[in-house]
């Protein structure tokens, strides 16, 4: 410090000292009010946090309670006789014949064997409903994998139909008069008999994770839409992250500040506020109608969602780049680093945690997006699990939307279960982001 400033402060002190006693009084008087205000503010904060946490808890608990049963599936033990006649198979059937064989007939026969008294057509029909329509696919898979099974009697666990499994889980109110009930008295007797014989069992629902969508709730799985989401998000990430970061770096570090860059900036900010369905229309017009990319495909979904996430990532990346202290840039420039080296050696690593946060927010948005995907046909009923970017697919939120529309009890459970899976994917994504952020921050 030089003597000039010393001199000026020493001159400034006397008038202030006369103020002190007065100031002390005033400050003391206002203290009570100030602390009270602080306390009130803290209280409001705590109330707000408690309220939001309890809403979250209610949401998660209710979804979990409703969704958990979907992770369990009830199976019925049957001895199925696979004789060629019932299956409608000739000599030396090929794979195609095996695929088309009448497995339902075999299942029906084995059910009738269990209850030889059932003779009436109506009663038979009621009995057949015990095994899910999807049961035949299980048999089909087994036989196609091992055709020597034909002619043998095999013991299998087959998924129980929707009504029966609803009853077994206690979803059917037996006090309701029989007429108004979907599950009739004779069915109850039969199923209780089976239960007493230990022929009914509840196991972890592997089907839910290993199959695509289905009309039968017991056979409907999340795998198709989960893979659809993953493929779509991969396209989104691969496209939007590098483009957005490069754009942000260019605009923030290299672009001249003139009218053009101003216009670009305003437009990027506007894009972030455009309703997502508009991007869907754009995708439909450009990618599908103009470039003739396939409908319902993850590649198109990814392209559309990239358009949507780009502005989010660009804006947050620019903010992160801007927040890197200029002294770091000066230091690197002063040592003779070129602009590009300054950016890639220092600025970008320091901005990375912020950029990743923005990216994750963008990706989370993309993961939960439905509207633009409806426009490009990702809402179709698709049974197959997509394996490639051009396979028809749907995504988790659309799947939830579809299942929520269906009346069967099984789909109500499935809807909640799918929401749980969606939340799980979100949490996993956030966890990865936190880990990545840690890693970058560790490097100081």
């Amino acid at each position, binding site marked *: *410090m*030089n*003597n*000039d*400033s010393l*001199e*000026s402060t020493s*001159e400034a002190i006397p008038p202030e000292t006369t103020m002190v006693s007065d100031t002390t009084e005033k400050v003391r008087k206002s203290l009570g009010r100030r602390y009270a205000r602080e306390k009130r503010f803290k209280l409001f904060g705590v109330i707000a946090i408690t309220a939001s946490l309890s809403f979250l808890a209610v949401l998660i608990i209710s979804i979990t309670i409703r969704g958990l049963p979907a992770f369990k599936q009830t199976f019925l033990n049957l001895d199925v006789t696979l004789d060629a006649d019932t299956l409608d198979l000739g000599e030396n059937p090929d794979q195609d014949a095996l695929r088309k064989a009448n497995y339902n007939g075999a299942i029906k026969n084995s059910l009738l064997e269990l209850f030889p008294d059932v003779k009436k057509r109506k009663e038979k029909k009621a009995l057949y409903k015990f095994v899910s329509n999807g049961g035949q696919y299980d048999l089909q898979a087994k036989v196609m994998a091992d055709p020597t099974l034909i002619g043998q009697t095999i013991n299998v666990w087959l998924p129980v139909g929707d009504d029966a499994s609803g009853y077994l889980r206690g979803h059917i109110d037996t006090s309701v008069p029989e007429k108004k009930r979907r599950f009739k008295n004779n069915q109850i007797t039969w199923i209780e008999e089976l239960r007493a014989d230990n022929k009914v069992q509840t196991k972890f629902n592997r089907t839910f994770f290993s199959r695509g969508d289905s009309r039968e709730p017991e056979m409907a799985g999340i795998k198709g839409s989960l893979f659809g989401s993953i493929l779509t998000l991969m396209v989104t990430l691969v496209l939007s992250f590098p483009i957005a970061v490069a754009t942000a770096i260019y605009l923030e570090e290299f672009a*001249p*500040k003139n009218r053009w860059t101003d216009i670009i900036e305003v437009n990027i900010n506007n894009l972030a506020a455009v309703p997502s369905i508009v991007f869907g229309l754009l995708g439909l017009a450009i990618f599908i109608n103009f470039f003739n990319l396939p409908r319902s495909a993850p590649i198109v979904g990814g392209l559309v969602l990239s358009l949507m996430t780009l502005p989010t990532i660009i804006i947050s990346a620019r903010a992160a780049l801007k927040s890197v*202290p200029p*002294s*770091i*840039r*000066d*230091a*690197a*420039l*002063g*040592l*003779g*680093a*070129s602009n590009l*080296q300054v950016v890639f*050696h*220092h600025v970008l690593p*320091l901005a990375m945690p912020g950029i990743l946060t923005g990216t994750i927010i963008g990706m989370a948005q993309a993961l939960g997006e439905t509207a633009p995907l409806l426009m490009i046909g990702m809402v179709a009923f698709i049974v197959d699990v997509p394996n490639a970017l051009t396979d028809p697919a749907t995504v988790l939120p659309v799947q939830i939307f579809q299942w929520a529309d269906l009346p069967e009890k099984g789909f109500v459970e499935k809807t909640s279960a799918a929401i749980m899976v969606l939340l799980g994917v979100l949490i996993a994504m956030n966890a990865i982001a936190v880990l990545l952020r840690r890693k970058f921050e560790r*490097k*100081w």
Partner: protein
Amino acid sequence: MNKENTVPALDLEQDTPTEQTIEEIVASLGDTVGQTRVDNPKMSVSNVDVFYADKQAIFGVDLDIANNEVISMIGPSGCGKSTLLRCLNRMNDTIPICRVTGDITLDGEGIYSKDTDPVLLRARVGMVFQKPNPFPKSIYENVAYGPRLHGLNRNRADLDDIVVNSLRKAGIYEEVKNRLDDAGTSLSGGQQQRLCIARTIACSPEVILMDEPCSALDPIATAKIEELIDELRENYAIAIVTHSMQQAARVSQRTAYFHLGKLVEVGDTDTIFTNPRHELTENYITGRFG
């Protein structure tokens, strides 16, 4: 505030221009007093004007920076010391509104000429900033960054040598030799500043510019850095901006006094402090305003 020596310029410093514009006052200051030129200058500033947008910050400065010598730049706040210093390694290029006219040469070659690359220039003219600004990396990486950037080392052992030597020259090696992998930002302010000096030395520059390198440091750290500057003088040309008259007197051989963007007086440090010739210089160093 002592008002007995009221010069019109005084008011301007507080940004309350009287009838006179800055240009008129600067014109009234007259030519630079003292010897602006030296024999065999390392860097030479001739008739340099600097503008921030329309506002002129430096008015027709002529000044030489000699080898093996420390020149200190002093003057009231806002008089353009940092601006001139930043012109010497073209750090002003990063400020879009900043415009420099006139000639600045390094070893006789114009540094603003078309075939001078600012990156190369900054490798030859190093800079230490007012606020210590180590990279948020390890101490080792901080020092190794420059040499690596310019490919000064042939192998890892070479690099180790450069790092250790630079840290030693900056007088900080003993304090950090056991923690070279710690973050540079984990050091104290004074240590950080010496680390920044080590980082600058590691590039083996020819000129070192320092902008108030000790303003954030305590007297002990300051003394260490001043000692260091004195040692560095043997190998480098050094220009230092400082607000401390004592520091200028202690470390520099020549002193330049700036006022409102004009170089008012320059000469041997001893002469300037004992026998200033310009009235403004005298007022400043005797502490009558600042």
